[in-house]
């Protein structure tokens, strides 16, 4: 067991012929992920990475390959369209890596997929990794080993840092999920925490948050009232000034809320051990 992706995942890559899409398709195949097809409008009938069929539309790809998960690498201006397309073609789980999608597009996407009962991870996220089974996204496969720790994070490279620190001391992950740094996304901390709580392979959880919004505060309440498994937390941005976007569109302290101090306090009040820096996380999990 694991959450969201495993060795039975049948993955479709939207934007498979772009440089990012193709590069990461190869990486995912090398890891052992079942990549069953790709979509690039106008290039249907061709092949990517020698033996992956390319289709003109997600609908055709799903009919032919039985794909049950899709990953999106298309540029920001076309990405919302790609999410709508995947949802309309009946894909139940969509992962969007693309960075820089307008918030207005994402609000329409989110309200649409919620009506359809489709789950979206991202956008502006590194995807997810179930070590030893499937890599759906861009998390480097060699920095993680299988284990019993579930990881959920708003940041990409910061997640790699944590996986790497865990591997150094022989700790591994059940599934690692990057939910992305955008203000309006498909899946939040609580969604993933709930899945980890129900996953028999996950015994402990690491939650990595950052400044901006109130997701971590809500997660703290969820942890306090609904969770039995221990959670270790980390919040990036303790030195960030107010009113400035720290790279991620969602990472901004505004109107006096969203600061790291508030989030850390909320988590500690919920019984979460909060690390002062990423490399302290393994010792707090012991």
């Amino acid at each position, binding site marked *: 067991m694991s959450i969201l992706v495993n060795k039975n995942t049948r993955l479709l890559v939207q934007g498979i012929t772009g440089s990012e899409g193709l590069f990461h398709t190869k990486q995912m195949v090398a890891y052992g992920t079942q990549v069953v097809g790709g979509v690039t409008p106008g290039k249907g009938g061709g092949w990517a990475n020698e033996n992956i069929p390319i289709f003109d539309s997600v609908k055709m790809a799903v009919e032919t390959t039985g794909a049950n998960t899709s990953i999106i690498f298309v540029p920001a201006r076309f990405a919302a369209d790609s999410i709508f397309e995947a949802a309309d073609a009946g894909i139940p789980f969509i992962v969007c890596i693309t960075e820089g999608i307008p918030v207005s597009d994402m609000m329409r996407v989110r309200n649409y997929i919620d009506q359809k009962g489709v789950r979206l991870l991202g956008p502006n996220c590194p995807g997810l990794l179930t070590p030893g089974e499937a890599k759906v996204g861009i998390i480097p496969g060699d920095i993680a080993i299988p284990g019993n720790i579930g990881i959920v994070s708003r940041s990409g490279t910061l997640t790699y840092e944590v996986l790497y620190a865990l591997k150094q001391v022989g700790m591994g992950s059940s599934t690692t999920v990057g939910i992305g740094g955008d203000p309006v996304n498909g899946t939040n901390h609580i969604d993933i925490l709930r899945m980890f709580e129900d996953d028999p392979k996950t015994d402990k959880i690491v939650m990595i948050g950052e400044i901006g919004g109130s997701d971590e505060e809500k997660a703290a309440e969820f942890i306090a009232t609904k969770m039995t498994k221990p959670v270790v937390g980390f919040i990036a941005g303790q030195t960030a000034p107010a009113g400035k976007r720290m790279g991620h569109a969602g990472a901004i302290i505004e*109107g006096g809320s969203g600061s790291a101090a508030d989030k850390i306090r909320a988590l500690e009040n919920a019984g979460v051990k909060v690390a002062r820096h990423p490399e302290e996380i393994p010792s707090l999990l012991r």
Partner: protein
Amino acid sequence: MKLHEYQSKQIFSKYGIKIPKGRVASTASEAKQIAEELGGNVVIKSQVLVGGRGKAGGIKVAKNPDEAEQFATQILGMEIKGLPVRKVLVDEAASIAQEIYLGITNDRAAKKPVIMASSAGGVEIEEVAKTNPEKIYKLHVNPLVGIKDYQARDIAGGINLPREHWNAFSEILKGLWRVYNDYDAELAEINPLVITSDNHLVALDGKMLIDDNSLFRHPELSEMRDTDEDAPSEIEARKFGLTFIKLDGNIGCMVNGAGLAMASMDILKLSGGEPANFLDIGGGASAEKVAAAMRIILSDPNVKAILFNIFGGITRGDEVARGILAAIAEVKPKVPMVVRLVGTNATEGRALLANANMITAETLLEAAQKAVAAAKGELK
């Protein structure tokens, strides 16, 4: 990006929202001429991208063209919260019976646009939220459906607007909704929306924030960007697709990934240092980008040491190392540099940097502690 009041109001006007007669001026004589054309009392309003212009003396009512010229001269020579006033808006003065607040913004928690209205207009909405939160009426709109007439009536009633104004208010709200949508605004705000003594609804002041991610759809707006409030280094960084924010410390930071960049700043502080900047070189950073980033960091005379923390994923360690070497050759930095490379092609990267006379570190904590020591001159 933020739009100026005059830019926002011009957009509102195109969508059928009534604004005062007036024009923008860059010189006092232009302001005088506009005041002559308008006749009567005029308001001279500084156009800077900060709040609190009135309190700072940046908004004045002139009774005649000569006074308009005199006030424009004063205001055009001012700095408000550190920003120079380059333009003034000269508007005909309105006689105000009531001031209303009306704004539409993104509610990230609800994943929907939210309309906010209040009968306590004319002051900043954050202030109303603190002192009289019950005076703000909020309504979420499904972005797939858009605003409906009944919702506009709901809001009008919610702020106790006299019924005679409901139709006019509804048209203004629907116009503002279209502005918010068409321009991918993060905020479209009329404050105050006034009921004049002759019973018209007029947008006296306007504010718009545009989502930077949507600017590919609005090339005409990118050209209107006012960069006065950005540090020169931030403007330079934007050219290279780098996200850079200047801070007050003395340790320059170059990191890939926003979350890791923030965590690296935090750990510097934890180790007794102060970061000089936030810098995310992004995924797949090229040697050229890295060199530009180093130039930008070193343009700050406060910088006494640089910390490089690169976790290779999409970004390759050897590519970053080549960028660092190119930058060193070009910029010839005199400050000590601490480098930590992990992940994809890190071994190759470290080999490239072996002869570059840099301080190396294995862990993030070690790198931060060495950077702090280097900035104090204790490590070279």
